[in-house]
């Protein structure tokens, strides 16, 4: 377990992710209506940052080819992406959103 601070809870807007980079891992953290969720920020199809993509209804789109991922589960929802993105646990400690990048 390695918890990293992302940002203060009250600084998040819905559907606007914040990004943390830890070593080679780049993780996008989203505020959804039921809490905070963290997924790998890199599309599994071609290199693109999901945090640059359109986000709606718990899904984020790759900005290059509009492949969709479920933010809660990391699941690749349509072509051309076929591989799920990694998901990371989150928690809120003293008003700060943290992500576990193990």
């Amino acid at each position: 377990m390695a918890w990293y601070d992302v940002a203060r809870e009250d600084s998040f807007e819905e559907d606007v992710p914040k990004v943390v980079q830890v070593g080679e891992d780049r993780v996008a953290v989203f505020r959804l209506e039921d809490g905070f969720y963290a997924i790998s920020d890199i599309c599994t199809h071609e290199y693109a940052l999901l945090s640059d993509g359109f986000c709606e209804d718990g899904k984020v789109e790759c900005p290059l080819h509009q492949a969709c991922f479920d933010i809660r589960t990391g699941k690749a929802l349509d072509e051309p992406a076929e591989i799920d993105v990694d998901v990371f646990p989150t928690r809120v400690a003293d008003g700060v959103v943290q992500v576990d990048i193990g």
Partner: protein
Amino acid sequence: MKTVIIGAGQAGRRTAELLRGLDATREILLIGDEEELPYDRPPLSKEILLGEVHPKGLMQRGVEVYNAERIALRLGARVAGVDLGTARVEMNTGERIAYDSLVIATGGRARMLPLPGAADPRVRTLRTIADARALQAILRPALRLVIVGAGLIGLEVAAAATALGCAVTVLEVSGRVMARCAPAEIGALIASWHQGAGVTMHMNCRLEAIAPDKECLRLSTSMGEMNADLVLVAIGAIPNTELAEEAGLATDDGILVDECGRTSEEQVYAAGEVARIRQPTGHHVRFETWQVAQYQPSAVAHAICGADKRYLELPWHWTNQYGRNVQMLGAQGEDLEWLTREEGERLTSLGVDAYGRVRGAVLIDNGRDATPVRRIIGAEQVIDRDALLDPKRPIRQLC
């Protein structure tokens, strides 16, 4: 039931995979004239040239995937003809293969310049992965590369070759770059990236003769003489309609199909770039894009299974040059007024018609606007001009 698909490119692969998804039992045979397993072409003019051996964007599945899906492959195989009367495909070996349904997904081939000297091996085109690998092996610092045609392929190769240190000149017969696929302001912006990177851009310039010499190719153009070590001809593609024409299908610069991919003959379909697809307006349009090869096969697969699923996607394509991503959605014509929203380096330009409706868009490093823009175009609403121009108002809030 047996479906034979002629053409093992992206459209052929997608048709086979989607058809398998809809029908677990039918026989599916995919025939291709290249030795390579099916692949998508976008990386050919970018990552492959830059030396990546197996970029992910090729979407090239291993043979075990086809085995698992029970999609039979015949690669490096040529079809000699199609006999619609007996529903058979004839291979150039003389073998005859019966089908219940046939899909023609033969794509296109690169157009060549009708010039003497163009047969020299130093005059190339780029269409297949073999073309791309051969080009990659030649590109080196200080190589004098002349690219004929400032369309997407020509410009992407110019960007890659420049990154590799080649001395690149682009000749374009029209007055501007990307004349067929992007508005003038966007073309000018992209041209400025090339000029900034050191590419010599000659607009309104026609290549008139190629004289192969031992050391180099001596080129005569409408702007004077120049020498090249290598010429890449990137002046568009010609649809491979010969099999369809000889079989007697209706064609017109492409195989004529309805919105579901049906040709003029029962049980015969066309998929991808070779198809000229009927539009809701009644006229037919052919698309040379990854999008049509990716999504129109879904209509074809459904039609084969007896279901109507019309292909009505808003036209969309993209290019990557110098690390910038440019996406073009919908109409790109000069009849539209282009309103541009800039947010730092990101840009979204909206093409608005005389009634104030958004008809098309160009996004530069701004793919997050693609889905909202599609909705705005689809809604055909008149949108307040000040709102369109205000980058502080997210585009998703305009629809």
